[in-house]
């Protein structure tokens, strides 16, 4: 029997998709009105299935078998048609593009309630309220497709809110957004929580952004609950979180590492940079910790003796539109052989356009790209593919063969690799990404993370001297991000290749990149050693980039002698004498 004041109640729920793939096992969840539940877990842990189960997408769109009791806003979504559930529950998905299909924001917001026959005046009232809440007032007549990523997702959220739901399910709503877009969406969600009327269930990989919102945290691993409780209870177990493939928020990680010496583990959920810095300062003053600034030497300047492998000379790229957009404005830079370069910046700053120019996919209207001093325009498509490999964001744009090994053979044949070399290269590429066992599997049966690895393997097999990864962290879980970054690192170290990685993940790029380029509005805003770039906090603000958490803590501890070029937690621990080791 379900208690009446519970907005969501799941009791011993097990769900299997058709084909007996068990997605959820023995799940229990109870959430009251106004409660905010955060669901964490690696890709494939069952987070999206839980969203589908709550919203009635299973069994009405995806079939399967369920055991146990489910009640959402007083309904069992299994027993009523989807449109009935939609009167009480709204669902927001990862990709805003697929949720916006009307030509104006006004009609987009009206679509749902109009389907349910809600009176016109009521629809208009709800639309005004929803637009105000997501701060999109005044854009009613704009086409949703013209909005920025963050605006699109807020528009999609507003379109859900006009359904006047009691329960809101948010399935990784920020995973495809840049930092500004994520902040905008999280801010809108926070306002919803503050109103206290909605019960919200949100899945995410971005633990930092939900730490202060969550009332209850659920961590899934292979469909089972491995941790459940308040944020303090869950985030106080970083080892268990890591084992489940969930990122411990960097600040919580640092605090838990420093806590045994510096203070109590209570209040991890609302910990701030200042508190952690204060704890460390207290410990240093009490002699429990000591600062060894020399433990992390300053970053080395780029090796000018290395030959230039890629050069952008006064590149300008304009897209005709409508509306016309200038993506790159007079960009000049040199990439030296063997560098590991990070490229960051907001969506629309020109990152993808720049690397598309590097890979010969785009011809700039002005300027040119040189590979080892030779204009890229003189090289054939095959010639470029052998020298410069670009792994695009979405692997599904390239996969089409019946097996993973065939997918890799395709590129090798196109560039004319001799027959006797093809098979060893296929095996080597699959080994590099850890997909040997799946060599004969249909690529679309792989998980999204593995499909990305296959796309990387197909590129690496061509043996390029330059490997470029375009946002490998987007829609990827914590573990998957680092696996891809590790692949890039190994390719860089073992083959001496030059690597360029575009990402929004500053913690990841701080760990891997020697050099960092920040693009802003089609121009190079900053370019230098990664640590030095992250030290320029005021300049970074122009591009809405916030330095890594460890760098923020180090900056707060600068008066104690912590060097400002500390940018990773490991470097911080080394300076505090918590680990032994050489230079980063």
């Amino acid at each position, binding site marked *: 029997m379900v208690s009446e004041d519970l907005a969501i109640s799941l009791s011993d729920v097990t769900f299997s998709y058709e084909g007996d793939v068990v997605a959820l096992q023995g799940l229990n969840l109870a959430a009251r009105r106004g409660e905010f539940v955060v669901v964490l877990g690696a890709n494939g842990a069952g987070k999206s299935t839980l969203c589908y189960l709550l919203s009635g997408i299973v069994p009405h769109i995806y079939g399967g078998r369920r055991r146990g009791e489910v009640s959402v806003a007083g309904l069992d979504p299994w027993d009523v048609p*989807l*449109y009935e559930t939609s009167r009480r529950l709204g669902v927001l998905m990862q990709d805003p593009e*697929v949720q916006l299909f009307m*030509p104006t924001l006004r*009609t987009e917001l009206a679509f749902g309630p*109009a389907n349910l026959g809600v009176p016109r005046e009521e629809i208009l009232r709800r639309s005004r309220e929803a637009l105000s809440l997501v701060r999109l007032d005044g854009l009613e007549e704009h*086409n949703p497709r013209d909005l920025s990523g963050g605006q699109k997702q807020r528009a999609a959220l507003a379109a859900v809110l006009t359904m006047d739901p009691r329960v809101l399910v948010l399935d990784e709503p920020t995973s495809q957004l840049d930092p500004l877009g994520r902040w905008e969406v999280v801010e809108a969600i926070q306002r919803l929580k503050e109103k206290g009327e909605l019960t919200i269930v949100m899945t995410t990989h971005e633990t930092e952004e939900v730490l202060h919102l969550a009332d209850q945290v659920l961590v899934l691993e292979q469909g089972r609950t491995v941790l459940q409780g308040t944020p303090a209870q869950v985030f106080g177990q970083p080892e268990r979180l890591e084992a489940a493939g969930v990122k411990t928020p960097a600040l919580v990680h640092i605090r838990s590492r420093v806590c045994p010496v510096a203070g109590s583990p209570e209040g991890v959920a609302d910990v701030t940079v200042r508190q952690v810095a204060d704890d460390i300062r207290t410990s240093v003053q009490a002699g429990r910790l000591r600062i060894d600034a020399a433990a992390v030497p300053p970053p080395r300047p780029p090796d000018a003796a290395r030959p230039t492998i890629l050069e952008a000379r006064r590149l300008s790229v304009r897209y005709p539109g409508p509306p016309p957009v200038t993506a790159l404005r007079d960009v000049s830079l040199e990439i030296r052989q063997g560098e590991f370069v990070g490229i960051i910046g907001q969506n629309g700053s020109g990152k993808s356009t720049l690397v*598309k120019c590097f890979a010969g*996919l785009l011809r700039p209207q002005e300027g040119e790209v040189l590979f080892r001093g030779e204009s890229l325009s003189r090289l054939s498509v095959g010639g470029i*593919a052998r020298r410069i490999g670009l792994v695009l964001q979405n692997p599904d744009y390239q996969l089409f063969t019946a097996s993973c090994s065939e997918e890799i053979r395709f590129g090798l044949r196109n560039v004319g690799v001799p027959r006797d070399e093809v098979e060893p290269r296929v095996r080597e590429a699959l080994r590099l990404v850890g997909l040997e066992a799946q060599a004969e599997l249909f690529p679309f049966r792989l998980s999204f993370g593995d499909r990305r690895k296959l796309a990387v393997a197909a590129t690496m097999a061509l043996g390029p001297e330059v490997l470029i990864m375009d946002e490998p962290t987007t829609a990827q879980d914590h573990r998957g991000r680092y696996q891809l970054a590790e692949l890039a690192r190994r390719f860089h170290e073992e083959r001496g290749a030059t690597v360029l990685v575009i990402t929004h993940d500053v913690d990841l790029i701080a760990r891997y990149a020697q050099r960092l380029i920040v693009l802003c509005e089609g121009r190079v805003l900053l370019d230098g050693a990664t640590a030095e770039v992250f030290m320029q906090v005021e300049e970074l603000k122009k591009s809405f980039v916030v330095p890594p958490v460890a760098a923020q803590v180090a900056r707060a501890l600068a008066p104690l002698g912590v060097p400002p070029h500390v940018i990773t937690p490991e470097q911080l621990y080394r300076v505090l004498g918590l680990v032994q080791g050489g230079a980063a």
Partner: protein
Amino acid sequence: MQPVFRYTHVDTPIHRLHPLVKLAYVLLTLVVVMYPIQASDMIVLLTWLAFSAVLWAVARIELARFATLFKILAGTFVFLLLIQGFTYRGGHTPLITLGHLKLWEADLGVITVEGVWFGLVLCVRILVATSSLPLFVMTTPASAIMTALGKLRVPQTATFMFISALSFTSLIFEMWGSIVEAQKLRAFDIDSMNLVKRAVKAYVPIITPLILLLFRRANDFQIAMETKGFGAPVKPTEIEVVSARLADYLWLALVLAVFAFCTWLEFAR
């Protein structure tokens, strides 16, 4: 890349026009282009095309969009001009003589003036036929289209399929471009292949991922729609209040007048 024939919100008399008047214009255009084909049709077609051009201009639609339509059709136009130039049965005045190859009544070695003219008539006919629907779509919001079709008692599902097809068309173009780029990165360059090679083998690496992606996208689309109550057994609320004004009747009269004039030109000569 933005889709070329997409609704753009601009305040013009054509945008404000009642959708049923615009729909009447589209349907009458189809009637005009379905008149029996004759070489002497050019004046009728040019009259209707000129009327369409006026509507495009009043709707403040950039010439670039018309140029895009022309570019899409350019290949068809060249084909029609050549095929009619060489094979038109009524052709007897040589324009270009490449040789002589008699096949029934036609001489396939000669491009005739009458053939090229007839080809031109067909090209203009296609241009007339294809220029009306983009005007309707670019100046009428989807909700107004749905309301208008609802008033014509077209089922909501059919109307929504029409609207969805419009948005899927632009999606297909975007995906096509991304897939071509992705395959180019593996040295598979469809743009550099000749037509025969494209037809024989090139489309598999492009069309296979396109179909798989479209299936996935259609699935996401279905989720987004159905979780917003699409298909509920209630009469959907009409958001757009589309009521006829005096201006709508005047525009309708103008459309009918031009249509009547074209019909007179076609049959009264």
